[in-house]
């Protein structure tokens, strides 16, 4: 799993590629989000467009990232959720918790 972090104006975009699964991808995501928050990021977008698989640990990490951001007064939004990842989030009703956008541009603009 790879994560590329880029800055678009005052929004930090985390581009995730591969599997967000136990033992590797989940930890990488945690570190990337933590790094963005520690760096003072207040507006975060996780771009899931190139995620192939997410398991319960990956879902747990998304939830932890969301609550970490919220507890720090930051906002975390999701963009480009692939259908199978969307199914996984829908089954556990988490899709209603996250702020979700079809494109990264829409997610970035939502912070304006």
């Amino acid at each position, binding site marked *: 799993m790879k994560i590329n972090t880029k800055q678009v104006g005052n929004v930090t975009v985390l581009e995730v590629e591969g599997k967000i699964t136990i033992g590797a991808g989940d930890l990488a995501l945690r570190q990337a989000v933590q790094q963005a928050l520690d760096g003072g990021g207040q507006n975060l977008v996780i771009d899931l467009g190139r995620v192939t698989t997410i398991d*319960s640990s990956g879902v747990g990490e998304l939830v932890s990232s969301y609550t970490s951001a919220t507890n720090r007064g930051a906002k975390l939004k999701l963009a480009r959720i692939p259908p199978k990842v969307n199914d996984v989030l829908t089954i556990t009703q988490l899709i209603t918790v996250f702020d979700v956008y079809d494109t990264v541009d829409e997610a970035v603009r939502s912070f304006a």
Partner: protein
Amino acid sequence: MLDSARGRSPVPDESDEPRVHLAIGSRFENIELVQVVLEDALEGMGVDGDTRHWVGLAVREAVANAIKHGNRQDPGKQVEVDWGVEGHELVVHVRDEGEGFDPDHLGSPLAPENLLRPNGRGIFYMKSFMDTIDYAPGPTGGTEVTLRKRVAGRPAEALGIPQEGQ
């Protein structure tokens, strides 16, 4: 990854039907091996891509639970996985060497107080992706989870099981 896997060999079960058997050390990276071998086998059976994905994800969850909660990530303890076809059902067994497990005490991940918990969704997902999930004490201790799913394609034929009318 492969060094701690004992390998893959078709072994007969009690009904003498061919089954695939894997034994892996309790490391999370070995979950990838199980998923690759399982999904490759399902593809060979003619099982469609969506079903392969969801079965693979369910078995990933079962193996992850066996490694994390059953064997507590002790690499000296093994997780055994085997699968085969019974009628038109794919039947997967995952066994650990842990101290047992009572699934009845799990809270629902959909309960408002649990919705934002970082864990507690694995078994719920397994139940969602498969037809049935059953937990029982393993034959030599530990816990055995049995996952069943009716599969389309030609699973029995692919495994050499005689079909009706043949």
